[in-house]
């Protein structure tokens, strides 16, 4: 590894480490530790819509900062997590939630894996049973044969 490459690697590593510690940099004045934990938990469940693979807690986008502020203000006003989520969903769609809610439109999403697993198990069962049956038939004819 050349010196320049090594330097670049270290720089990348440093950025990665710095990024992992850089969340929630806005100066928000929490009432107590419990509220701060609640805030961190809630913003981790919400998606930043600008950089869609980041959650609100992690994102440094301006919009994420606005939304964190909004979540914070609503929390101070005594609203529950569910009310805050409802507020955001009404404006930004279910997409803002990392966990898609269970409703008719998302049944396929939630249940398809189980349905596929069930279908696989059923197919396996049928094949196995058929195979043991043919094996039994073969065994019977085998035993009947006179050597």
């Amino acid at each position, binding site marked *: 590894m050349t010196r320049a490459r090594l330097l670049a690697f270290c720089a990348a590593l440093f950025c990665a480490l710095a990024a992992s510690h850089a969340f929630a940099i806005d100066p928000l004045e929490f009432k107590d530790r419990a509220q701060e934990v609640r805030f961190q938990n809630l913003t981790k469940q919400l998606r930043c*819509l600008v950089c869609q693979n980041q959650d609100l807690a992690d994102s440094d986008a301006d*919009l994420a900062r606005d939304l964190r502020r*909004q979540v914070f203000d609503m929390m101070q006003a005594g609203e529950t997590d569910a009310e805050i989520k409802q507020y955001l969903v009404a*404006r*930004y*769609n279910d*997409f803002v939630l990392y966990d898609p809610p269970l409703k008719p439109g998302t049944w396929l999403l939630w249940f398809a894996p189980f349905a596929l697993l069930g279908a696989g198990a059923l197919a396996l069962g049928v094949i196995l049973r058929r195979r043991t049956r043919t094996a039994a038939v073969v065994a019977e004819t085998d035993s009947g044969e006179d050597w």
Partner: protein
Amino acid sequence: MIGRLLPLAVFAALVGLLLFGIQWNLHHEMTDVPSPLIDKPVPDFSLPLLNDPTKLVTRKDLLGKPYLLNVFGSWCPTCQEEHPILSSQIKPLGLRLIGLDWRDPPEAGQQWLRQFGNPYETVLNDASGSAGVDFGVYGAPETFLVDAKGIIRYKRTGMLTHENIQTELLPAIRKLGAAP
């Protein structure tokens, strides 16, 4: 025989699913979040005029005729790219064009419009971005088509282009029973 064909059929179904996924991604913008506000009333707002912060405009002031609400900001390069299209292709439609200067200090918005021209009938200023949150704005430029009763009928996230004006915006306007 059927036992032999079954794995092939499953494989073909899987290939079909993956091809469908690729097709879907080619024709849909993954960043395009469908707005839950379509067919809902415009959220309540009270915003100052960009050029005169003492005058407030509310949702009710804009009722009566359909309008387009275009969200922009002087900090937004795509808005600059979209800007000439507003003058050349949107203004001739004869719809009221309302600007919403989003997350922008008023001076910056004013300066920007002086520099690039002002295609808007009215420009509102949302310096804090709170009205933007109520509109579910997440990336400028965004454009809302609002009917005479104040119901949002169409939303475009991102730049208006000749193509999406023809294929999406114009049909939505025709549905209102208004101009062209």
